[in-house]
């Protein structure tokens, strides 16, 4: 079980309010991702849940019972840190065993769980090594192993993959997703990488300056971002935002068009511009097109091989039903 409820939770560091009062419910078994720009308070929120920080006001409940004043050890949560935070003086086996030892679990049960976790995480051959002798990915798995064996009510991850290289990151991302599918335990995962958020989450919580901007499934966020912040934060590459006459013609202050919703046409496109930098990924090509309606270049996704070069003129046409409209406060217009 692992239902976590935050009720008007607020956090101040001295006079600075990092988290304004905030409500949030994380359902049992859900994979929730906190995403937002650097410094927006993701880690702080996670640490409040973990009990590593005191809340200034408000209440935290885990499975319905109040946990606001419980020390971290008593909350039944497990955390995986960005730096892995393995105990450097203990072998992998002892690292994994540590939380069970602290809980006073009997030896045989400890052994059984270590073996199970090691097998699930491909660590069996490394159990007697020290963390210093492991690669980054292996260390990350040890940290996860240490969290699993406790069979916690929920897992908390704070940017667990940011110290890994790109290839490993994709691999670990899938491992964590698989783990979630298998264990069906609540996971709260902090990242500033929206791709991680989109691929892993059941529910994404977008934060800005401690505020929750929107909560929803990845596709909800993608299809109907509640405001321009979420619109430009979710989706890669970023959504193109346009203001001025073109927006007014859609009865909005701002309109947004995702790069993948712009079609390259032969002539008479809504937008006509010059091709700037283009990024060829093989499967896709992203063009940065200079158009008069936007200060920044407009990003366009085209198919794998398009015969356009730097400086060429290009005609673009947005898919009409995919245009997002926002009012003067940046809020979505239905």
């Amino acid at each position, binding site marked *: 079980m692992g239902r976590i409820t935050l009720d008007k939770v607020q956090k101040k560091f001295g006079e600075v309010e990092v988290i304004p009062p905030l409500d949030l419910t994380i359902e049992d078994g859900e994979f929730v991702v906190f995403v937002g720009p650097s410094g927006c308070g993701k880690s702080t929120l996670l640490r409040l849940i973990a*009990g*590593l*920080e*005191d809340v200034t006001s408000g209440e935290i409940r885990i499975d319905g019972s109040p946990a606001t004043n419980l*020390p971290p050890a008593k909350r039944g949560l497990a955390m995986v840190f960005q730096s892995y935070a393995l105990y450097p003086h203990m072998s992998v086996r002892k690292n994994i065993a540590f939380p069970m030892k602290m809980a006073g679990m009997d030896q045989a049960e400890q052994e059984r769980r270590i073996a199970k976790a090691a097998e699930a995480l491909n660590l069996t051959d490394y159990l007697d090594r020290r963390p210093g002798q492991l690669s980054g990915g292996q260390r990350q798995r040890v940290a996860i192993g240490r969290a699993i064996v406790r069979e916690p009510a929920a897992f908390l991850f704070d940017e667990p993959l940011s110290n890994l290289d790109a290839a490993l990151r994709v691999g670990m991302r899938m491992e964590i997703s698989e783990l979630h599918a298998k264990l069906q335990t609540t996971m709260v995962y902090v990242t500033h990488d929206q791709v991680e958020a989109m691929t892993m989450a059941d529910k994404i919580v977008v934060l800005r300056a401690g505020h929750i901007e929107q909560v929803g499934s990845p596709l909800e966020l993608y299809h109907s971002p509640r405001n321009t912040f979420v619109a430009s934060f979710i989706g890669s590459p970023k959504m193109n935002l346009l203001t001025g006459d073109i927006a007014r013609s859609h009865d909005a202050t701002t309109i947004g068009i995702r790069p993948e919703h712009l079609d390259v046409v032969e002539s008479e496109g809504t937008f006509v511009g010059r091709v700037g930098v283009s990024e060829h990924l093989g499967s896709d090509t992203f063009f940065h097109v200079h158009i008069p309606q936007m200060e920044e270049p407009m990003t366009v996704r085209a198919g794998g091989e398009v015969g356009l070069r730097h400086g060429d003129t290009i005609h673009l046409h947005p898919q009409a039903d995919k245009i997002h409209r926002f009012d003067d406060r940046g809020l979505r217009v239905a």
Partner: protein
Amino acid sequence: MATEHSRSSARLMIAPAVFVLLVWMLVPLIMTLYFSFADYRPLRATFETWIGFDNYASFLTSSSFLSSIGTTLWMVGSILLITILGGVLLALLLDRPMFGQGIVRILVIAPFFVMPTVSALVWKNMFFNVDNGLFSYLFKFFGAQPFDFLSQLPLFSIVIIVAWQWLPFATLILLTAVQSLSSEQLEAAEMDGAPALSRFWHIILPHLSRAITVVILIQTIFLLSIFAEIFVTTNGAFGTRTLTYLVYQRVLESQNIGLGSAGGIIAVILANIVAIFLMRIVGKNLDN
């Protein structure tokens, strides 16, 4: 990074250390302060609790105070001069490429670990002694008159002993500082065509300035309270009576507690002036 719970246990954990140091600092210091305003001479069974600033007045105006200040300044000043100059040169030398660097370092650092009474006695008897000291043999070897260092040049002799003990300290710290100077910086200067001497003046010395300041401050604090070396060699005679030694004599030898306590308070004030500067530097370092 902390919760209220951990903060209160933190206070509990600091408490014993703060408490013992507070007691250690305050109780005797307040007693000294109290005695410094009293006429207290146990040998004559005199105890008058309040005589105002008489002790301070007579301590500060006595000729022994003035000469002790002079002695202290000479002693501390010349030891600082020797150790800093020697330390900079030695640090630069030890930083050069050479064979057996580790062993040379060990040789140079060794005197710092010799207990003060041992080094004082060894120097006094086996080097300075006019009849059997090595220096006497050396003088005779060159056809000169043997020279009684400790009675002819007592202050100088003590300076030599203490400088020998502290030179390793200065060297070690300055060497640490020299080694933290990036060789790229020096190479860049060399590429720019700066000759060795100007590299020293414009790059190495400014880089060392902080370390030198720290060495000066720390050594000053320790040197102000030199005791064993004087105790063993001259026992404060022949113009080697520093402020510390003077206070020691007033308190424990002539048992004029009031007067000695006034001297003690003056010593505390003087040491604090130096300490403030040191604390500033240390404090700045704590921030980053």
